[in-house]
């Protein structure tokens, strides 16, 4: 039982707190910001760039079993998914489905 309690204490101290501090900092800043201010336009560009960095990092330095799929297949799948999204009336579903099919077929052909 103390082991279980220890696991929840760790969750609060090393999972919740270091993560939540960014949200609460954001809350403090956002309270002073107007939607039409230049700072808001800048923060939006920063957030999009961070997200783009996250996406590229997962593709190039992937976690877990995704790392066993060769880089060429990962890049091919993301390109096919993106092309399907643009070609099929900008449908998010079509893009994700196409990318997944290419990735899994590629992984299968590669013997994973």
């Amino acid at each position, binding site marked *: 039982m103390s082991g*279980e309690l220890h*696991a*929840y204490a*760790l*969750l609060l*101290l*090393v*999972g919740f*707190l*270091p*993560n*939540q501090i*960014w*949200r609460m*900092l*954001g*809350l403090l*800043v*956002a*309270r002073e*910001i*107007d*939607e039409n201010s230049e700072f*808001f*336009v*800048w*923060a*939006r*560009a*920063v*957030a*999009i*760039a*961070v*997200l*783009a*960095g*996250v*996406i*590229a*990092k997962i593709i190039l*330095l992937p*976690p*877990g*079993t*995704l790392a066993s799929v060769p880089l060429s297949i990962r890049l091919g*799948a993301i390109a096919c*998914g*993106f092309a399907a*999204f643009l070609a099929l009336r*900008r449908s*998010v*579903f079509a893009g*994700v489905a196409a*990318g*997944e099919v290419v*990735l899994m077929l590629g*992984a*299968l052909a590669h013997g*994973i």
Partner: protein
Amino acid sequence: MPSAPNLDPQPRSATAAFFAGVGAAWSSVLAYVLIGTYVGIAALAHDFGFSLWWVVASTVLVWAGPAQVILISALGAGATPLETALAVGLSSARLLPMVISLLPLIKTPQTRGRELVLPAHLTAISMWIESLRLLPTWPRATRIPFANGLGVGFMLAAQAGTVLGFYLAAALPPILTAGLLFLTPMSFLISTTRNCRLASDWLALALGVVLGPVLAAWQVGLDLLWTGIVAGTVAYGVGRLRRARP
């Protein structure tokens, strides 16, 4: 798939707006992406010996997929609490610009600070992307409950995936877990692209894709936050110059 819910010029009640948010979450592809992603996270936690309730609690409290993957793998592999806290904190820096670029869309001059705590907590990539797309169609007075509904709807999807993944853990072949891990970059790339309107949005996306891996490869500390600041500032600057031109 509908691209946006029908415009309703009449202000609705807060409860109606909240449930419309839950509904919008479940009609978004990202809800199903979250189910798949959390099947993978729960399977990982199961393999490291965490209990189902611990994983469910971590999704409620942390509510950031990449941070949860780091938390589970670091603790499971026996990293020290300090190392784990640092790794989690570094991976979550993106939440700062996301919260700053979301809350001004939902607050009014009358909004009290504590009303913004829940939307700030519910801010995650999925909720942020769909909020930016859908909020402009909602009357400002109902945007806070709508955003809360979106966040809660997405969190329910993640919890459904968590329970599913915990019991499926042993039965998942590697090709499927690779596919589940691929859901995040594929769906986020497409839905961020769909949200790009300003020139600075497009430029931030393109520069971030290039700069993120470069800074990560150079092992710059806080690489994602620097990617955002450098690429975002250049994109903002170019966008502002274009706006200034007649």
